[in-house]
């Protein structure tokens, strides 16, 4: 079985900006993959290269085994892209847009599937509305729908939840998860890290055009973030206790690896004579991982 996506040594330069710098990445079929990175990291450029909107200076990209340059027609049939920019054609209604998009992929009668997509994205009541009349979030939904008309095995969403309300986020993710369970490969970029943590089984972090971390979500969390005991105390804690700990906003944060260690930590706080006024357990989170990776702690493949 070929990989859903295979990217080999892809580089792309825009003038003085090295947008992609030797990117190497393989995504298996059925994965729910997260592509994270700060603004300007190259996420959109990488997706555009995959979609044939950007031609890389060097390297090769394949979608479901099809080369995106040499075999572009086959590759594009395998791929559905939700672009980051909120674009629409003001001449057409929602349904017309979807019918036209189906036609571009050579699908003559797609009404049943179009209705299903509309339903799943909460667009049924807007089907005959002109694109101009829709709110920003509704336009975003149509963009998602347009990417799905040809039932692509690989679906790439470039910040699909930017500027979208809670309701759509939930319906969108429920729908995308169902597609993933039905075997579609999903690639997602987002700046909402809790979203990526919740959805993605594997994550790549991109910084200045390079992949600086690539691992399963679980491994990344374990490697860069730990559980911690977070407390507020009525007086300053002794220095030896704080070795390895951090303080912010009156909260002390003492990391630990296993839950048995919690008792010992608490006992030491008590023997030091500090009263605990507030306490919680901090879980590893992707935001912390992200910040650390971006600060330069490189993580290889694992």
């Amino acid at each position: 079985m070929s990989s859903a996506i295979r990217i080999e040594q892809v580089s792309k330069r825009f003038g003085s900006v090295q947008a992609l710098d030797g990117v190497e990445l393989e995504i298996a079929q059925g994965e729910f993959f997260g592509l994270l990175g700060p603004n300007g990291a190259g996420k959109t450029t990488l997706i555009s290269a995959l979609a044939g909107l950007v031609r890389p200076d060097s390297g090769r990209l394949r979608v479901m085994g099809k080369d995106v340059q040499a075999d572009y027609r086959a590759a594009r049939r395998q791929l559905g892209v939700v672009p980051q920019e909120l674009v629409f054609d003001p001449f057409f209604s929602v349904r017309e847009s979807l019918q036209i998009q189906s036609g571009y992929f050579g699908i003559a009668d797609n009404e049943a599937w179009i209705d299903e997509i509309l339903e799943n994205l909460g667009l049924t009541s807007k089907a005959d509305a002109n694109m101009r009349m829709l709110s920003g979030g509704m336009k975003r939904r149509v963009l998602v729908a347009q990417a799905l008309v040809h039932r692509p095995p690989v679906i790439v969403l470039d910040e699909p939840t930017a500027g979208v309300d809670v309701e759509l986020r939930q319906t969108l993710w429920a729908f995308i998860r169902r597609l993933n369970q039905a075997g579609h490969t999903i690639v997602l970029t987002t700046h909402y890290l809790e979203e990526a943590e919740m959805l993605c089984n594997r994550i790549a972090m991109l910084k200045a055009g390079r992949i600086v971390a690539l691992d399963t979500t679980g491994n990344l969390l374990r490697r860069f973030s730990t559980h911690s005991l977070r407390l507020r105390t009525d007086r300053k804690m002794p220095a030896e206790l704080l070795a390895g700990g951090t303080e912010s906003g009156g909260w002390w944060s003492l990391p630990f690896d296993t839950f048995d260690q919690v008792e010992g930590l608490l006992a030491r706080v008590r023997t030091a004579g500090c009263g605990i006024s507030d306490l919680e357990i901090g879980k590893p989170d992707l935001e912390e991982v992200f910040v650390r990776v971006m600060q330069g702690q490189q993580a290889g493949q694992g």
Partner: protein
Amino acid sequence: MRGGFSTLLYKEVLRFWKVAAQTVAAPVLTALLYLLIFSHVLEGHVKIHGVAYTAFLIPGLVIMSVLQNAFANSSSSLIQSKVTGNIVFVLLPPISYLEFFAAYVLAAVVRGCVVGGGVLLATLWFAPVSFAEPWWILIFAVLGGAILGSLGVIAGIWAEKFDQLAAFQNFLIMPLTFLSGVFYSVHSLPPFWQQLSHWNPIFYMIDGFRHGFFGVSDASPWLSLAVVGSCFAILTVFTLNLLKSGYKLRA
């Protein structure tokens, strides 16, 4: 709708048809105004090829409308899509360069012929016009529309802003169409301008088109066909290569 070409053609035709007041009715009205003014001033004073001036003018206005609207269709559609960003909708699907080119050019021909037909219908009342060799009418309308449609594709891809497109239109397309014998026979020009006109491909489109109506023209319609056909062949090769290179469409 099946396949990239037929859908793209359908979409491009629907696009101008949905705003037919601007894209069809307005240019018909403009041509009608030209006819009223010029024929009022010149009718009775001028006869060309033995034809009364108003009758001579009608085919010129028709083909001028075909050419200008064919250019306007492909160029404005492409620049709008580029500026608004919805060009990605046609760049993401598996549409080949040839399908892309053929759909935009053919839609331009359709728009040109719809407007040209409208101008003909609206102006027929003003003077008796014959249809001596109608196949020439059809050939030059389609080929002329296709040439200007291709130029529109090139201009639409090249231009990044609407004013660049306007410059292309005002400094190239308009002078070439006006200086090509729409309002006069080039034989009535001084020799220098007559010579110059023979280097303007649009002169042959108009001359050949007019031949279809009156059976007489400044140049042989076969010569015109050779010139216009070669122009289209050259433009086709050029535009296809432009599209294949991804120039300004695929970074």
